[in-house]
């Protein structure tokens, strides 16, 4: 574009300014409505955690004619008492949520970086692509289908019991033995996310300067040494930043996985229940008085800790690698 364009541009942006702003506002409008309805509207409801929820049918003249809103407003403030109620389970819930997430992170990094490096190094490029396509596939399989696959593997007549205990009555009761479940979750996570997680590392790897490797090779560095001293150090910033971002979400579990894989087995509760699952289970105990209050308190705790952690981790990321920061 020539200079005349630039001149004309300035002119046109001055002339059509208001009309254009109107068009832009109209463009964001539908999105704004969605955000208002599904993200902003529930935000004040976070206050549920500080209330003793009692259903109060609105009387004519009340501000809110909706039962929930009216109850939310009319229910009594109880300070932090809902939170103290949670204390008895808090240790277990935090251990499960944070503990599983940490293990998933560590194992995830090793597998994902490993896969990315291997795929990147393969001499047969086309087959490498096929491998990656297959490894990526589980990402698209819902946790509910994974639950079916798991059932087919570990149920009384499942593949493992059918193969190793053929005919015997003493099958392994996976669905009532706690000791297997941490492993089941770890394997399920690795199965579902290794291919998907490797994508970002693969994209980073392909951007590395080939000359560095050639120089390394001239200096007699083996492929392993090249990985150790050239690839890994260059990949480190990406690895570290992704982990820091993951820490920002460490209080959020994969609800679908933790909720569905144990298949509703109550005996496994202490090793399978995360904060998200607890919130849902409590919420669904409609007969329990103040179940909304207790669940709300747990949800509020999760929201606020998550909020602080994201701000904190983002602050760290922005300091060291601004282009990877969320904001």
């Amino acid at each position, binding site marked *: 574009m020539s200079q005349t364009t630039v001149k004309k*541009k300035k002119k046109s942006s001055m002339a059509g300014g208001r009309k254009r702003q109107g068009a832009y506002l109209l463009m964001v409008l539908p999105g704004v409505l969605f955000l208002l309805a599904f993200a902003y509207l529930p935000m004040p409801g976070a206050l549920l955690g500080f209330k003793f929820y009692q259903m109060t049918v609105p009387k004519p003249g009340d501000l809110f004619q909706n039962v929930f809103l009216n109850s939310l407003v009319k229910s009594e403030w109880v300070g932090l008492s809902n939170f103290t109620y949670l204390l008895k389970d808090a240790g277990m819930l935090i251990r499960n949520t944070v503990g599983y997430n940490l293990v998933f992170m560590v194992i995830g990094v090793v597998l994902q970086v490993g896969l990315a490096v291997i795929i990147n190094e393969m001499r047969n490029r086309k087959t490498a692509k096929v491998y990656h396509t297959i490894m990526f596939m589980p990402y698209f399989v819902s946790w509910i289908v994974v639950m079916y696959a798991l059932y087919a593997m570990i149920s009384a007549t499942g593949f493992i019991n059918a193969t190793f205990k053929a005919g015997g009555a003493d099958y392994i009761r996976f669905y009532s033995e706690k000791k297997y479940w941490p492993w089941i979750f770890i394997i399920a996570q690795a199965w579902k996310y290794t291919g998907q997680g490797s994508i970002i590392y693969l994209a980073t790897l392909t951007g590395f300067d080939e000359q560095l490797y050639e120089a390394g090779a001239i200096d007699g560095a083996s492929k392993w040494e090249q990985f150790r001293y050239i690839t890994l150090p260059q990949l480190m910033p990406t690895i570290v930043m992704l982990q820091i971002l993951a820490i920002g979400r460490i209080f959020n579990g994969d609800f679908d996985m933790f909720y569905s894989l144990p298949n*509703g087995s109550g005996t496994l509760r202490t090793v399978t229940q995360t904060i998200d699952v607890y919130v849902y289970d409590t919420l669904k105990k409609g007969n329990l008085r103040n179940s909304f209050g207790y669940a709300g308190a747990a949800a509020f705790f999760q929201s606020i800790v998550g909020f602080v952690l994201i701000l904190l981790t983002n602050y760290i990321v922005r300091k060291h690698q601004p282009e990877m920061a*969320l904001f």
Partner: protein
Amino acid sequence: MTAIAKPKKNVHDNHNSDTQARNLISKRTNLLFNILLVVMCILVIFPLWIILISSFTSESSLSQYGYRLWPMEWSTMAYSYLFRDGSIMVTAYKNTLIATVSGTIISVITVGLYAYALSRPDFKFRKFFTFFSFFTMLFSGGTVSYYNMCRSVLGLKDTVWALFLPMAFSAYWVIIMRTFYQSNVPEAIIESARIDGAGEWRTLIQIVLPLAVPGFATVALFSAIGVWNDFRQCLLLNDSSEYYNLQYTIYQTMNNLRFLKENASRMGGVSVSNLPSETFRMAMAVVTVGPIILAYPFFQQYFVKGLTVGAVKG
């Protein structure tokens, strides 16, 4: 250069003097990597294979021999029962299809518009609306409030709307789409359209839209997969089986099955053989995941694109 490096680098490399365009791993290592990846791929496919094969097994053989790599006795009975009139699967499929199509269309339109406005440097309220959408990634009112607002205030309880509306718009997709506009649609093209007298809407539809098709495809596919695989929205918002989606329907069926099987001995009179068919359930899982697995290799590239932007920014 690499020719000099080769002997030092690897003594096993004897046959690749002409393929040694770049610094490659040895053929032996390459073979090892191939074996490793074949094993990994088998591990990935294996659980899905078991589901598929058991859905083609006869019920009696499945209950007698359990889940196997290869059926003792083949049968397609499960599938012939699957889509009978009035089957819960017919309803679930219908609901999921409606939700997926509607959800995807709404996502593309709303996210496409929102992100376009945010990508325009001359939008006055750009900062505000960026933050307005971004803040929802940082803080949420929590599941309890969300549950009540959707069910009681917004009236989504027991509707097909519940299966896609709450998921139709996401700040995360806005970021992907905005990045896409910024990197794929040259500013100069928009300028020249403007000079030719095109308004904002015409510029967007006639000039920007064709250039941003891969971006729209990315958002559309994320949205479609999200709605198709959704379990949580349905669990939270829909109580009546008339409005269940696929995932929730098969979840319910599985849950009942395991419960019945484990307690069969305690429920005197009910024998395991009288329980609803297990192969039938596996067939349900096959038709739930089938379309996605068949379609995904064709769309993979868009997901890769979206995830490379999204993994960092999402």
